Structure formats: C-alpha cells, structure tokens
C-alpha cells in the first residue's frame, strides 16, 4: 500500500471563527426554510366550492331549458322541479332517510369487511413472491370484471338475501383494496427501506415502521377505489335482486320507480345514488387523504 505523509505548517488553514459559521448557518436556515401557507376560508370557498356549484347550476339550467323547449315529452323528461317534488313526497312519507340508510349501511359495512379481507391479501401478494406470481395477475384481472357479472352467480349460490349483496360487494371491492396496497408497497422508494435497515428496522419492525407508512398514499387510493366499487356493486345487486325480505334500498327504489313508469322518481333515484357516493368520498376519504398528503408535503402543487 503506497502511503505518503504530507505535513503542512499549522496556521495555513486560517479563517473564520466558529461564531462566524453559526451566523451563516442561522442565516441560511432562515432563508431556506420553506413556509407552508394554508388558504383562508374565503379563498377556499372561492376556489373550491364555487366552481362545482356553478357546474351544477349550469346542468340544472340546461335541463330546465330542455324541458321548457319540449325537446321530448314531459313523461320522458320531467322538470327539475318535478324531481324536487318527488323528493319532498318521500320526505313527507318519512321513507327518504330509511331508503338511503339501508343502502349506505350495506355499502359501508360491506366495505369494512372488504378492507379486513383485502389488506392481508394485498400484504401477502406484495411480500411473498410465489403468491404474487400466482394471485397477482388474477387480482388485477378481477378488477376489470364489472361486479354486476357476479350477481347471477351470487343469487344461485346464496339466494336473494343480504349475504348475496355482501358477496357482490366483496367481489367488487376486495381486488381494488388489495391491488391498491400492492401498488403502494411497490412504489415505496428503496432508499427508505435501506435507511430503515441501517437504523435497525428489519422484519416486522420494518413492515410496521417503514413499509406500511410509506405505502399509505397508494393504499388510501386503493381504499377510495374500493369504496367506489363497493357502492357500484351494491347498486347493481339491489337493482337486479328483488325480494320482500330485503329492505328497500336506493337501487330497489330506482327499479320500483321504473316499474311505475315514474320518471321523476327514477331521476331522483339516480341523483340520490350519485349524491351518496360523492358525499361518502368527500366526508370520509378526501379529508384522510389530504391530511396524509399534506403532512408529507405532497399537496403543495395541488393547493
């Protein structure tokens, strides 16, 4: 091993004092610190609430115009006001909330079960190579299968009852949730895993402290999609399956109004289904997702 010693006279490395550098450092910290600002309420209202509200008003205006111009017969296209009256009728009959609740309860409880099943499946698929090779493609394939296709099979297997509804929800939502987790884990930067290993996060501690938190954004996206799939599957199942044993949910209500040729009721059913889907997403998923992303500094570009 070649080795050379070079000794330079002490004192040639003259220069700044320690205090100097502390000053430079403090100045840099002050200059470079990133200030994250949150918008005021008025600003949020103007930027976030106003545009979609205008969009809805535009749709209503076009609808009303089509009705007033007699584009088609009033029996096929009732006015917005007719639909409003249909909603009022349900309200006075006292059934509006029970119809909504029947479906929301089924949808949410089915979703929670799908979450409990889909999460371990996702973990297994992402971490165990043979499982991934075997189940991975099936799982992503299942995602593109419309879950309404399961309804006839579920009716034969389970009969027309609540279990059949839940079966259809699970078949729709579990693949989404599992796939979301797999995607989330696949996208974890290898650097985090290396950094985790150097501070001693291996095995179970690594999964708990590094892998799962790092995969959370992808997992949440999967949950959101899982909810959308749950809700769609449930509506499909309710539309198809008719039995007095089943409570009256939104899908059944929609189908009943069709049988009565009550177009205002049908439109009301569609609007309510849309409304619930959006409301759950806005009230449950969006706040959680925004919090997670904001904490990681991933929302700055979106604002």
């Amino acid at each position: 091993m070649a080795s050379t010693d070079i000794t330079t006279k002490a004192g040639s490395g003259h220069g700044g004092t320690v205090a100097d550098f502390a000053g430079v450092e403090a100045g840099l910290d002050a200059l470079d610190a990133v200030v994250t600002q949150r918008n005021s309420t008025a600003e949020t209202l103007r930027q976030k609430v106003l545009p979609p509200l205008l969009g809805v008003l535009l749709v209503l205006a076009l609808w009303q115009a089509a009705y007033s111009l007699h584009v088609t017969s009033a029996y096929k296209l009732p006015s917005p006001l007719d639909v409003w009256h249909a909603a009022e009728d349900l309200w006075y009959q006292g059934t509006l909330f029970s119809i909504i609740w029947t479906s929301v309860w089924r949808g949410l409880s089915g979703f929670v079960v799908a979450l409990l099943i889909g999460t371990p499946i996702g973990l297994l698929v992402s971490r165990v190579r043979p499982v991934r090779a075997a189940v991975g493609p099936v799982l992503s394939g299942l995602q593109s299968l419309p879950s309404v296709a399961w309804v006839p099979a579920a009716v034969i297997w389970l009969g027309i009852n609540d279990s059949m509804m839940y079966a259809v929800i699970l078949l729709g939502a579990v693949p989404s949730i599992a796939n979301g987790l797999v995607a989330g884990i696949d996208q974890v930067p290898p650097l985090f895993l290396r950094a985790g290993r150097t501070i001693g996060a291996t095995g179970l501690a690594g999964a708990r402290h590094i892998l799962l938190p790092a995969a959370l954004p992808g997992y949440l996206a999967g949950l959101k999609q899982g909810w959308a799939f749950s809700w769609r599957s449930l509506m499909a199942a309710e539309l198809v399956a008719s039995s007095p044993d089943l409570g009256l949910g939104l899908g059944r209500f929609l189908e009943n109004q069709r049988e009565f040729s009550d177009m205002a009721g049908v439109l009301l059913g569609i609007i309510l289904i849309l409304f619930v889907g959006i409301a759950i997403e806005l009230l449950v998923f969006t706040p959680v997702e925004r919090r997670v992303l904001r904490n990681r500094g991933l929302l700055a570009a979106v604002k």
Partner: protein
Amino acid sequence: MSPALTTSNDADGVGTLDGAPAVRISHVHKTFGRPGAQTHVLDDITLDVAPGEFVTLLGASGCGKSTLLNLVAGLDKPTAGSIDVPGGRPALMFQEHALFPWLTAGKNIELALKLAGTARAERRPEAERLLKLVRLQDSYGKRVHELSGGMRQRVALARALAQGSQVLLMDEPFAALDAITRDVLHNEITRIWAEQKLSVLFVTHNVREAVRLAQRVVLLSSRPGRVAREWTIDLPQPRRIESAGVADLSIEITEELRGEIRRHGQH
C-alpha cells in the same frame, strides 16, 4: 501502514478494545453478476479506521466506494475477505437525506432511538438533545418538506447519531448541496466528530472536501477498486476549504486521481 494508523486518540472508545480499530476491512473482494459474466468491483481492499479517526475515501466513478460503504454498513456481504466493526452496526448517512416524510424531524430521530432500544420516556429529551447538537433545536415538530436541504442533512445526521454507534459512515452526504451550505455542514461535521469522538468513513468524489475534512485521505483506483494511495493530512481543524494548505494538497491529489483515470483510457 503509516504511523498515524496505529495511534488512537480515543482512549474510551465505546465497544472497542483499546488500540483496536473501529473498522477493520481486510482483503475484501466484491464481485457482482453471474459466474462467467462477473464484474470485479473491489479488489483486495485492506483499510482500518482507528477509533476517533476521520477517513475519506476518494475515487472516480466505478471505484466501488459506495459498494465498500454498503459492505461496512452490513447492507451487503463481501465475496471474500472480512469486515469487522467491533462497536456494532455502524450509522450510515446517504447523499439523499432519507428522512421519512410521514414523521416530523423529531419523530424521525425518535424512531431511530426506539429501534436502538431507548426507553420511551427518554426518547423525546434525547431527540431534542440531538437536534440541539446539529443546531436545529426549533425544528422538532417540522415536517421534512418544511426543511431546507442543509437542514434535512443535519436532521439525518442527528438520526444517524441516535443509533448510538461511534462509527459513522457517510456516502457523499453533501454532494447535492450548494457550496455555502456544504461549507457550513463541513464545519458542523468537523465539530460534531471532535465533540462526539466519532470514527468517520466518508465517501466523496470531491477532492477539496476530502482534504477539508479528513485526517487521512484514501484514493481508490477504478475497475476494480483498489487502494491506490493514501495521504495523512496534518492541517489543524477547523480548516477552510479555500485555504492555501487545502488547495495545495488538493492539487496534488487531483493530479494523482487524474493519473488513475487516464490509465483507463489507454486500453
């Protein structure tokens, strides 16, 4: 070996026998790839870091300096030879800060403390002490994205120190920073190294940085990586990167490095 290697300036090195090196790399080889299509990355590397010593590893691309650091960190195994770190798993700092964005600065440090077995009640005060050590006492609750590049590397340093290892491995940790910030961090790492009596193995491709920081500069040749030459730097700390002493030595070492690189163009 030069006499500087055998003198230990840390009598009470944690977990090391007196006089024993903090890191002992002996006859390490590393090859990658399948048999028949192998690349020989490291060729018979022998290198000791004495307790309390600051060593920089210098080399052009392809000299395997990051590979060597991974081996010392225990993230990979040598093909032949042995690596011994008597003090236990060394701390490692990367070019990227590698802080976890789902935790605050303080909680990043507390996670390392927790994994190192620090009792729950002691974690918060210890994290605050470490933040104070890197002069970021006001940043406990800051999110990673709220910190500047230099501040992130200081938190990363605090997190590395939280492991309680006396051996600190640094893989080009300041390469992505601007010159002024890097200068400030050179001062910080020199101060903390001296205060905490750390043994540091610091990888860089920046000759001036190597001379500014190290007691000993080790030049690796490329493809395969071999120890080409080493210099003991006796300039007093704190040094200035723009000082004449650092510049003179840098010129000499750069010339040597150029020579190493030139050899690869000849065949």
